């Protein structure tokens, strides 16, 4: 019991500590691809420390919601991230909640973020919130359909079970899985406000979505929000790798050495996905806001198709 709790605590701390590193790595690789030197990988940590020491400046008409929202968003994202298998499956918390709960937690984080954007009443905040909700209204059904497809294949919505099933030879070749993977990647790009949908590195631009909502935040509130968005990126990377690339995942009851190997595998997966994300982002241009529904609609279509195709496979 104690050791199970310990491993769960390790995972929770690991996701929290690795999240800014992942963000920093993506930024660094992107900078190198553009032939700039770029800031150090550790820069996000320094930013967070600097922000945490700064004074919070609040608008006069900010309500309690505006002050509570960053912590709520951070808490829901952190809980969701601790439920996804990163280096080991079958952790003690993972039996308490399945994929649908993770989707719901992310949904409530987005809800609070959109409310916080509207709270102060600036035009940028409202703009960002309305766009975020527009994107979410397509991305969330797509995510749910991906969850259904995966659940139909693996026979469970429990992520640990899904990972174990994906490792077994029963999986075979399935077109539904490929479709679900592409759909999930598109959803991840949209939800993390990466480039074709939103640009994470600009500030004060008319097309921004995520930045527009958190424009009024400062000091420790901003630090918490930045951590939450880094965590969100890490969460999606872990989700994709635990469903579709579960190689090297250790079991929670395994020996410490196996857990360590699982951890090394996880770090390698993070490195690879950071490089892939950076390459993808530098090779594509940002879309107009009104084309975004088409882009995410593709994800929804693919996820629906993946679920439909499941009905002509041998198992059902």
């Amino acid at each position: 019991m104690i050791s199970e709790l310990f491993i769960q605590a390790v995972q929770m701390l690991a996701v929290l500590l690795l999240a800014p590193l992942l963000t920093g790595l993506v930024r660094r690789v992107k900078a190198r691809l553009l032939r700039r030197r770029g800031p150090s990988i550790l820069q996000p940590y320094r930013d967070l420390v600097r922000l945490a020491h700064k004074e919070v400046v609040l608008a006069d008409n900010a309500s309690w919601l505006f002050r509570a929202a960053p912590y709520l968003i951070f808490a829901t994202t952190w809980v969701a991230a601790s439920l996804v298998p990163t280096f080991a499956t079958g952790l003690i918390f993972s039996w308490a909640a399945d994929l649908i709960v993770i989707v719901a937690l992310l949904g409530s984080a987005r809800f609070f973020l959109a409310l916080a954007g509207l709270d102060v009443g600036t035009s940028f905040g409202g703009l960002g919130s309305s766009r975020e909700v527009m994107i979410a209204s397509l991305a969330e059904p797509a995510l749910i359909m991906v969850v259904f497809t995966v659940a139909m294949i693996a026979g469970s919505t429990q992520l640990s079970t899904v990972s174990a099933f994906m490792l077994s030879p029963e999986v075979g070749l399935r077109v539904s899985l490929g479709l679900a993977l592409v759909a999930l990647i598109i959803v991840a790009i949209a939800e993390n406000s990466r480039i074709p949908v939103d640009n994470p590195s600009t500030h004060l631009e008319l097309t921004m979505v995520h930045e527009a909502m958190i424009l009024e935040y400062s000091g420790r509130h901003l630090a918490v929000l930045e951590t939450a968005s880094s965590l969100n990126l890490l969460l999606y990377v872990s989700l994709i790798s635990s469903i579709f690339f579960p190689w090297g995942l250790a079991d929670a009851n395994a020996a410490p050495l196996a857990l360590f190997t699982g951890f090394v595998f996880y770090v390698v997966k993070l490195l690879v996905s950071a490089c892939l994300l950076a390459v993808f982002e530098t090779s594509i241009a940002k879309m107009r806001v009104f084309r975004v529904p088409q882009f995410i609609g593709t994800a929804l279509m693919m996820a629906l198709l993946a679920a439909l195709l499941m009905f002509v496979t041998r198992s059902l």
Partner: protein
Amino acid sequence: MIAETFSYDVAHMLAGGMLLVSFMLLYQDRMYGLLNTFALHAFVLSLSVAWEAYVNQSPHLYITAAIALVLKAIVIPTALHRIVQRLGIHRTVETTVGIGATMLVGIGLVALSMALMLPVTDAVDPLARQDLAFSLSILLLGLLMMVTRRNAVGQVVGLMSIENGLILAAAGANGMPLVVEISVAFSVLIAFMVIGIFLFRIRERFDTVDVHVLDSFRGERK
């Protein structure tokens, strides 16, 4: 047992891939992109038919696959490329309904064809069963494409994707030596229709089918 499920999986993947390419055809709004996607459609079809031939050990299906590959993945797209170039219509394809709505209708059609085909073909062997279900949905998607496109090239591509769906069904119904003849006949028919529609279009626009008129028209556009 493992070999059997593997062969089924590959067939499923190829047929599902074809269905996906059908959706890509619906989504494409650039002329050249449309033609390239159509070539991909025919290529996946020929792979699928060839796999069927390999699994069921029916060599005549290899001929069907070869015909699909040469005629529909190479010759017809190239010819259409040329026609599009000569007509100077390589701008966006006009669609009557928005792409999002078309996609949703397409998904609905796929669901419809599965709901229709799966109960009917309960007793058939699973490979033929899935081929029939997929081919009906590809057929319906082709029809949908013909309905939503106003451009003649788009309609021709829709028609030919219908025909690809038919060949998939024919290949799935194993032990049908007529398949070869049917596919050849259809291909000739399609080629005929391509020319026919274009002649109609040209005549409708210029009151003549003279190619010189086209040349002067292109000069005017530049």
